[in-house]
């Protein structure tokens, strides 16, 4: 590099600060100043208004008795409990619909997405109609529609029985259930332990295969750890697995597992609506795998199941996982529509709290905190999964 001696050095107004930096500083000060001014204005108004209405800010109200009824909840609750516990019950209800909804929507959406690619013309057209119809109608409308259908079902005494032991009536869906006590929990714990152990064993097997190239079957370990271990614990502890069948006594059902109509309608609406979006994601993911990959796998003479599992799916998943994350987040956020049909999720309970106590800011802050936590956990998990399946480049 040669330096041009005749050229004067660039003029700087304030030492090292050039024109560009000064401009940047000016814009930042301006924008931050406006933001601070607006927030300060709103804050001072709020403080004045709250003083005028004699509402004390802070989360002290959470310790008071809630006094609101919650009809259907995952955790035990009675109106004498505190607002804090009511919130926890609400979070439980939100998670109960979101987690089960995510699992069911993924299964249904994947089936429909694969159906859209089927060689069977009728099946692929039906799947396309399903996707188009459900995607283009507002979720809230679908939710109200399902809820009206639930209410129009026959009364408990004339309940439909599609299968023995299953009742569908305006009291909701009643299923046979296995009562879960402490003994059963030990067995479930053993199953979880078995899964974890199998995960470690599988890693070991893959590492060995990478070393000498010989494939080692994993299924005997899976059978022993995931099925065998819980079965052994069950026999040793003498756990009984009797299925409790619901029975009609008087006007209502006794025993079994009851899905209240509100919960059932919300679950159906969320699952069908989200599955339409997931179907499109799965379809485009599979279509994104180049044709040459199928041809090459066929040319190697691989079995179809092996080809799908080892060649096609790993490549499709890279396209599928990121948009799937946002669908999971959408489903969770959409579960807040529950308030429209009276299923008491966290938003609905926060809203009741707000009406009863006037603690608007605290209630909204709690909703935001809950949803931000759920969103961040889902993103965190999905990002971890995405990083695992991402393409490893040189």
């Amino acid at each position, binding site marked *: 590099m040669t330096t041009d001696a005749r050229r004067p050095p660039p003029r700087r107004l304030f030492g090292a600060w050039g024109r560009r930096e000064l401009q940047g500083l000016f814009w930042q000060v301006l924008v931050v100043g406006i933001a601070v001014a607006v927030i300060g204005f709103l804050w001072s108004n709020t403080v004045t208004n709250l003083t005028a209405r004699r509402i004390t800010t802070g989360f002290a109200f959470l310790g008071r008795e809630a006094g609101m009824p919650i009809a259907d909840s995952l955790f035990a609750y009675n109106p004498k409990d505190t607002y804090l516990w009511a919130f926890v019950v609400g979070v439980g209800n939100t998670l109960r619909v979101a987690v089960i909804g995510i699992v069911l929507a993924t299964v249904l959406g994947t089936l429909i997405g694969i159906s859209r690619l089927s060689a069977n013309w009728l099946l692929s057209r039906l799947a396309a109609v399903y996707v188009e119809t459900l995607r*283009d109608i507002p979720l809230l409308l679908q939710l109200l529609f399902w809820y009206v259908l639930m209410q129009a079902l026959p009364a408990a005494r004339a309940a439909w029985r599609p299968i023995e032991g299953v009742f569908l009536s305006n009291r909701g869906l009643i299923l046979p259930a296995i009562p879960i006590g402490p003994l059963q929990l030990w067995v479930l714990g053993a199953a979880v332990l078995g899964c974890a152990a199998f995960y470690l064993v599988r890693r070991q097997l893959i590492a060995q295969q990478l070393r000498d190239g010989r494939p080692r079957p994993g299924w005997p370990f899976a059978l022993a750890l995931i099925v065998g271990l819980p079965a052994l614990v069950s026999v040793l502890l003498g756990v009984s697995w009797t299925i409790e069948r619901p029975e009609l006594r008087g006007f209502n059902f006794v025993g079994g597992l009851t899905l209240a109509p509100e919960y059932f309608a919300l679950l159906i609406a969320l699952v069908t609506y989200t599955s339409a979006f997931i179907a499109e994601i799965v379809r485009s993911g599979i279509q994104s795998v180049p044709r040459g990959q199928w041809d090459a796998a066929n040319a190697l003479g691989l079995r179809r199941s092996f080809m799908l599992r080892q060649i096609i799916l790993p490549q499709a998943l890279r396209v599928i996982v990121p948009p799937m994350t946002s669908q999971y987040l959408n489903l969770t956020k959409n579960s807040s529509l529950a308030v429209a049909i009276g299923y008491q999720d966290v938003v609905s309970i926060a809203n009741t709290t707000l009406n009863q106590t006037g603690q608007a800011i605290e209630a909204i802050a709690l909703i935001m905190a809950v949803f931000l936590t759920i969103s961040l956990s889902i993103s965190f998990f999905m990002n971890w999964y995405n990083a695992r399946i991402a393409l490893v480049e040189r």
Partner: protein
Amino acid sequence: MTAIADVPEAPRAARRPQIGNPVLRWLRANLFSSIPNGILSVVLLALLAKGIFSFVQWGLANAVWLTPANDSSACRAARGVGACWAIIPEKYRFILFGTYPFDEQWRPALSVLLFIALFYLSSRRALWRRELVLVWIGALVLISVLMWGGVLGLSFVSQDRWGGLPVTLILATFGLAFGFPLGILVALGRRSKLPAIRSLSVLYVELIRGVPLVSLLFMASVMFPLFMPSGFNIDKLLRAQIAIILFAGAYLAEVIRGGLQAVPRGQYEAAEALGLSYWRKNRLIILPQAIRHVIPPLVNTFIAFFKDTSLVLIIGIFDLLTTAKTAIIDPAWQQFSVEVYIFVAAIYFVFCFAMSRYSRGLEATSGQ
């Protein structure tokens, strides 16, 4: 499907002789190509036939189409066997226009037509020019005049009495019209080199996207009065509109940011080499390219929050879904909500389906 250039496509169609009836050939290829496929087709056909048969029975054959005004006895007689479409002619004015003065309802009807014309014009590729902004401003002013009145001999109608389809269209369209510039600013902010502006933009986008729209609407309806000086208050519809604009802004910003990232670096460098200022660079060089890139996802975002405007039901604003729900409170017609919901679903479907078809058409031709 992507065709790989170096794998020659086998000329399948040419080699196979074309024999037999074309209908049978089509059936064989598409429905009965193998035994499991054949079984599947038969089962699906049977289910489909059963479904169509019972829908035709309920929705057409046994349906009640017209009843004398305010008399639902014929419908109640057919309950359970046939649909009561008679509720639609009975209630459609209320469902479509809410409590807008009955004699003046040509005004919201005209507004709806104006909205559709505006959407149509905006969809023409030949009209994607700067003048389109003026057309939007003109149309939105005209619609406001029509809906409010108070000038040109039109009687004034307060927005408390607006309802139905125009409200849905207003919430969605004004949400787009104001959310779009907001989204552009936030997207630029998020890609800015200035740390304070960047973090403010990130905070805004992530906060709004992290919470459900329902809680934003609650905030607009409950907390807004707390934020304002005492005595100052604005209308409920406007508050919901502000919430929807803020919501739309955050989602549109993310879409536009995608477009900005797709503009090649050379374009930025060339613009800077010409000595253009930051705003002129973005206005003349970067944004026109970035926005063209993301028109299909922008349409999809618009579809999503067109549907999401129905959430204002929860804070009691009379949009299309709320008027439908209110129409069936009438005890005489209470049992026929399914028919009303199907009617309203059809309206939403027509709008969203048209837009999604259009977006797919754009995607298919965008490479050309």
